[in-house]
């Protein structure tokens, strides 16, 4: 593998809850190249959002604990950096975030324009507090405004100037998500983390947003981590897909290999539970395990039809069936 933009290695994150300590991430690896769109898929509770939040450094401080591992972004280990340095240089600058629900991420009492301009001020202004700087500030503001308008045009919003004067509740869900994408692109980041960006949207709007996100990422050579539980959406825009189960990554492969030749039994049954024309309805027996006292070894073993002694006692090592295909299972050859 070449030089990765971001590589997460052996990341362990645990949350302390009333009932005990939940191991939400159990030794997760993830790497992403520049310009690559990586899908992070899995069912609810599999830890995909926690992984996204650990990369951004926005885990809740009083309950979450990163006990082991590293997150190397652009040759720097983010976990070793000072919190204020991450806040100043990385988060919101080089790594930006597109949330699942764009509505609750806006402040309802300010116009959209005010909120975008705020972002510009915060990220770009040099401190100028003298009286003589007034004119310079005005020029700067106009400059910012032009840039914002340009960006809103690239995300294909009709009437950008009108939208800047509106309040968040006055624009539709699809438009809010376009604005969020624009805001994520504003600081010219190298990595965008999109956390289920289309889950709350209708299918035609989803198609529009995915198309837009893919085009912009390609044009600007930005990497995207796209978390979703919708395998169809992942198929649409990703170059590579990593599937997670109960805090462990199960399989990671290029998008074609992933959907054509899945190796992990979990991936296989996940794809099998999708409604299909042929009418197969296969569900997965059992339930997602609680993460306080999770199953030993491979966490999927209680629901797996192939589970053997080894699966129960030890966690499977990384297997590479081919160069761009990684699977953590003792039985990776079974589907050949």
């Amino acid at each position, binding site marked *: 593998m070449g030089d990765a933009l971001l590589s997460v290695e052996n990341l362990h994150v645990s949350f302390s809850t009333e009932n005990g300590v939940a191991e939400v991430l159990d030794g997760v690896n993830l790497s992403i190249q520049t310009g690559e769109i990586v899908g992070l898929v899995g*069912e*609810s509770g599999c830890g995909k959002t926690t992984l996204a939040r650990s990369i951004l450094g926005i885990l809740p401080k009083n309950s979450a604990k990163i006990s082991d591992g590293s997150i190397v972004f652009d040759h720097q280990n983010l976990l070793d950096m000072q919190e204020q340095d991450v806040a100043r240089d990385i988060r919101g600058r080089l790594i930006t975030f597109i949330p699942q629900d764009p509505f609750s991420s806006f402040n309802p009492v300010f116009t959209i324009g005010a909120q975008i301009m705020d972002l510009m001020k915060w990220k770009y202004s040099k401190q100028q507090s003298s009286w003589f700087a007034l004119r310079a500030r005005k020029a700067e503001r106009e400059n910012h405004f032009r840039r914002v308008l340009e960006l809103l045009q690239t995300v294909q919003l*009709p009437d950008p100037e009108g939208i800047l004067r509106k309040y968040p509740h006055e624009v*539709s869900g*699809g*438009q809010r998500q376009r604005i969020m994408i624009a805001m994520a692109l504003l600081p010219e980041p190298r990595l965008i983390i999109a956390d289920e960006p289309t889950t709350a949207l*209708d*299918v*035609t*709007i*989803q*198609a*529009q947003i*995915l*198309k837009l996100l*893919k085009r912009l990422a390609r044009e600007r050579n930005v990497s995207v981590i796209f978390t979703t*539980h*919708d*395998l*169809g*959406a992942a*198929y*649409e*825009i990703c170059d590579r897909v990593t599937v997670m189960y109960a805090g462990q990554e199960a399989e990671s492969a290029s998008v074609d290999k992933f*959907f*054509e030749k899945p190796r992990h039994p979990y991936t296989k*049954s*996940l*794809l*099998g*539970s*999708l*409604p*299909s*024309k042929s*009418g197969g*309805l*296969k*569900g*997965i027996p059992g*339930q*997602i395990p609680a993460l306080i006292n999770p199953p030993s070894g491979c966490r999927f073993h209680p629901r797996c039809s192939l589970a053997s002694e080894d699966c129960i006692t030890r966690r499977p090592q990384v297997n590479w069936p081919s160069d761009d295909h990684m699977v953590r299972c003792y039985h990776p050859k079974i589907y050949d």
Partner: protein
Amino acid sequence: MKVKKTDGSDTILEINELSKWFPITNAWNRKTGDLKAIDGVSLAVNKGEILGVVGESGCGKSTLGKTIMGIHKPSSGSINFEGGEVAGLNPSQSRKLRKRLQYTYQDPGSSLDPRWKIGRSLDEPLKIHTDLSKEERFERVREILDAVNLPEMHLELYPHEISGGQQRRVGLARILTLHPSLVILDEPTSGLDVSVQATILKLFLDLKKKFDLTYIFISHDLSVVRMMCDRIAVMYLGKIVELGPTEAVFKSPRHPYTQSLLSAIPEIGGGRVTENFWLEGEPPDPSRLPSGCSFRTRCPFQTQQCALEQPTLVNRAGDRWDACIQSRKTFS
């Protein structure tokens, strides 16, 4: 226009020109207009079928379900269920009806009383609708619980103690205790993971067979609808724009809206939808609809005629109905 049944099977529900308009009021509570949530919808549901109602959020599919159920009072039109008129009944009359006609809410988790144990929630409809003794009621609850594959110990749990999939099962069990004939399922799988969704869908099919049910399946998830339903009705801004057998509609959609809706579904293994998706823009504000066909502002095939004429649902061939004045020219 009357939508008649087309094969020999019995019609269980027939609605005619049904409308539900909500008043729009200004800050002084003065009425300024109407939001036509459903506008002149006619439909017939055959006994034993699964009719899918699909469309994007705000198209009126949930309002349709709730109006049939009597949760909303219709503004005009008629609803005929099992041979009797049900629109505009008073509460005590409609209570009798509800035994046979049932509705499941989108989120069963929030429709169960959080302070009641599951057992009490399941017992309640029987208490209201039947004269059974306590033991008989308990027997019935146990039977149903078994049918939806829930262990009996769940009766002693509270709604927050069980998972989303199990909550759906409880929601289903709760209405099935009354042996309904028609069940309106409103977004029955939204918010479920795919592996759970598959087991729940399978359960719907099993229960349908076991209890001889008819479903109206309201959903925005087209791939689920395709697998489950015999016929589908596609709604756009309060109107049905296309109606027909599921496979036929999916294979050769006639209304341009149906075409764009179907082309937006990601299909694993097929071409990427995002590479040639043509539908631009978003649905217009439902309180200020364009004249004529409400889809014309986004439609690539629109002509002047579309702005002048309000298209109605017309039978084209066999079971196929659509509401596009150009349907015959452009797509047949």
